[in-house]
């Protein structure tokens, strides 16, 4: 065999390729880096998403459906979440990313991922976040609240200055002008998540849309569909709706309350409400319903029953209708003429109100029972709890609900120049702010921390702006006597917060020896109220079920005595106007079913 040196060396020629770029492909395959803010396949943070469906609504290609990830999700979801999640048809998507731009929670994004391979040529449908959990690490086009199609900032509400406010009982909130209201209404995405937490389930996105389009009269009609005191709620509602507004997740919730206030105020008097709402009043059906208490729940029952052809009579102990919204809420929050207008309108459609008629005194409960097919009790919580400390019965130691009632009834109350209010709820804040308007220096003493106060934060802020001093972690010990039976001051002890071993909220514990006396002219107690059921005959009381001072009812507000219905503070635990309206609205259906045996 011939030896060939060439054959030996030739393979070494391959070495000359050593320093060059290889022609082979990197394995495993490395994807090229995409541009910043590249719009690839969707990812949705399933936990952060609340299923508002705005992505689905905006999609111009109709590529997004709202679906249940697991069967039954939409029934079991918590309030504030529809339970649905977006599913994209990738065969229709054009990756314009409008869906990301309008996502209020920011849960929806586009990723840098653009490859999608499937053996099934029809598998275009996929649920972002579920189909690609790994997408979380590949976010590329994400929504940003500073550059967005959504407006996260609320149109500010104009208010009187704090110093100006305490000079009178003029309404603090000045209201939106037309263009302000329309601008604020235009922020709404119309998802309706808010309607579920509203006790009445008002048609919120619809009346906001009507306002946006300048159709205020339609907005009024929509509001009156299930709330006859919409203007009151527009001023003083506790607005749980705003707490779940999707825009509140990363910005400011829609000012739902102020928009309702704006629309309802467009009807300036009772005649105008009548003309705009123009309700259908059914011919008399011969059934009579007696209502005890002209508060929000009683008025609601009366209004909707009267429209349905019932003969309704309200028995009201006081000179004016409204209950707590008349006598409990200060006039700088809810002016008298506003309430009068709403009540006058109800009277115009056939609601009869007997004023100064206290059941148990001017008329007996049995007589009301005898004269009506059904009775509704909505007497509210009007009797104050006492603080339970020594010296509380001294002159000039008064109760907030009585104080507010007297002021609202235009009576003169001498509180002197130094006042302390005991409590941390809205009633305490109301009493404090009213006292400021009467010229007093006011201190609120509250057992816990400011963040524990049950009052609305806006009310707390308002009180501070008006110069109310809030002393937290201060426990009242006893009232100091001046020797002649009058209040001289209050002795209180400072407290530290200790964690509750049972897992409850932290509780205050007195710091020994850290006691002080605050010199005062008047002490106002505001630690809660209860109801006065003394007008109900004893035998009936035994039949009606009570639990911790509240009357037990079924879902139609019916008590265990079939012809007796109840609602408002004496039934529900939330004890606000909107819950009372909700009770009233449910009772209307309950009474109708009961009377007609449905």
């Amino acid at each position, binding site marked *: 065999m011939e030896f060939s040196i060439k054959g030996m060396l030739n393979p070494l020629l391959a070495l000359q390729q050593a320093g060059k770029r290889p022609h082979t492909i990197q394995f495993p395959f490395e994807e090229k880096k995409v541009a910043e803010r590249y719009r690839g396949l969707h990812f949705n943070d399933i936990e952060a998403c609340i299923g508002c469906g705005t992505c689905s609504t905006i999609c111009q290609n109709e590529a997004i459906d709202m679906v249940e990830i697991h069967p039954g999700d939409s029934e079991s979801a918590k309030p504030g979440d529809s339970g649905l999640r977006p*599913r994209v048809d990738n065969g*229709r998507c054009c990756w314009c990313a409008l869906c990301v731009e309008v996502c209020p929670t920011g849960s929806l994004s586009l990723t840098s991922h653009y490859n999608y391979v499937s053996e099934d040529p029809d598998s275009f*449908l996929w649920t972002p976040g579920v189909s690609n959990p790994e997408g979380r690490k590949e976010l590329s086009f994400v929504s940003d609240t500073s550059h967005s199609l959504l407006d996260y900032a609320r149109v500010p509400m104009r208010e009187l200055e704090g110093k100006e406010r305490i000079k009178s009982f003029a309404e603090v909130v000045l209201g939106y002008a037309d263009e302000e209201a329309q601008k604020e209404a235009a922020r709404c995405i119309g998802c309706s998540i808010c*309607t579920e937490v509203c006790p009445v*389930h008002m048609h919120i996105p619809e009346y906001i849309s009507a306002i946006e389009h300048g159709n205020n009269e339609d907005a009024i009609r929509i509001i009156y*569909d299930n709330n006859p005191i919409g203007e009151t709620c527009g001023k003083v509602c506790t607005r749980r709706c705003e707490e779940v507004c999707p825009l509140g997740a990363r910005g400011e919730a829609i000012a739902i309350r102020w928009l309702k206030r704006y629309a309802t105020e467009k009807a300036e008097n009772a005649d105008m409400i009548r003309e705009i709402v123009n309700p259908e009043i059914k011919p008399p059906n011969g059934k009579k319903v007696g209502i005890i208490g002209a508060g929000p729940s009683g008025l609601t029952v009366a209004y909707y029953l009267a429209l349905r052809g019932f003969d309704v009579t309200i028995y009201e102990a006081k000179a004016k209708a409204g209950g707590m919204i008349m006598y409990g809420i200060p006039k700088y929050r809810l002016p008298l003429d506003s309430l009068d207008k709403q009540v006058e309108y109800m009277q115009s459609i056939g609601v009869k109100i007997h004023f100064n008629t206290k059941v148990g005194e001017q008329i007996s409960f049995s007589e009301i029972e005898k004269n009506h097919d059904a009775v509704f009790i909505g007497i509210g919580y009007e009797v104050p709890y006492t603080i339970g400390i020594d010296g509380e019965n001294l002159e000039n130691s008064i109760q907030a609900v009585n104080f507010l009632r007297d002021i609202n009834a235009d009576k003169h109350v001498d509180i002197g120049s130094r006042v302390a209010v005991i409590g941390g709820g809205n009633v305490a804040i109301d009493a404090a702010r009213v006292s400021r308007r009467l010229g007093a220096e006011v201190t609120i003493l509250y057992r816990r921390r400011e963040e524990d106060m049950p009052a609305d934060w806006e009310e707390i802020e308002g009180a501070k702006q008006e110069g109310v001093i809030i002393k937290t972690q201060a426990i009242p010990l006893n009232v100091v006597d001046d020797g002649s039976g009058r209040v001289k001051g209050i002795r209180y002890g400072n407290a530290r917060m200790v964690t509750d071993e049972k897992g409850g909220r932290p509780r205050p514990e007195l710091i020994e020896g850290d006691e002080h006396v605050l010199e005062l002219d008047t002490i106002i107690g505001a630690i809660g109220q209860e109801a006065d059921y003394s007008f109900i005959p004893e035998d009936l009381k035994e039949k009606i079920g009570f639990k911790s001072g509240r009357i037990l009812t079924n879902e139609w507000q019916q008590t265990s005595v079939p012809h007796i219905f109840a609602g408002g503070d004496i039934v529900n635990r939330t004890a606000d106007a909107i819950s009372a309206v909700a009770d009233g609205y449910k009772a209307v259906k309950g009474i109708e079913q009961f009377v007609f045996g449905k």
Partner: protein
Amino acid sequence: MSDNIQNLQKSLSERLPQCSVKIRKHGGVELNSSKENLVGVLAHLREHFGYRHLSHISCVDWLEQNQFELVYILWNYESRIQLFVKVRLARENGSGISIRHLWPQADTYEREIAEMYGLPFDGNENPRELILEDWDAMPPMRRDFDTRAYSKEAFYDRPGREDAKDVRSVISGRSGEEIPEIAIPYTRK
């Protein structure tokens, strides 16, 4: 850099007194011209201000004002300052003026705008189709073009989408809310 921009604004204002010139918030200079002056202004910018490069021609549909706005984006390689030349035109029966003789690549942008907005250019009549084929509906980039209606008509719903639910109905069904007739026109669609 800001000195350069201010100097540019000053000299542009002096040389082109018929145009309003302002410095843009996010960089660059903006110049508003009338339709009559536009070609002269662009030629002047190219010959005397170093704006040799036409980056893009964009169009904005000001539906409410019944106007189209053309935005000519120019680039100066030396000063590296971007210049936006804007001109407002009538939306109905209006037309732009072709600048193909200044920058040949303008042809593509003019074709695109004519096709997508329905705005013709004098001097660039009957341009060839660019992206759309046999399109006889409203030009799709006009703001009053109903994309959703078009998409509904043009595409079928893929099988498997029947389980889609409506958020409003789910919420009202859960709470028992009865939406009255008066409110229905205002419900989100």
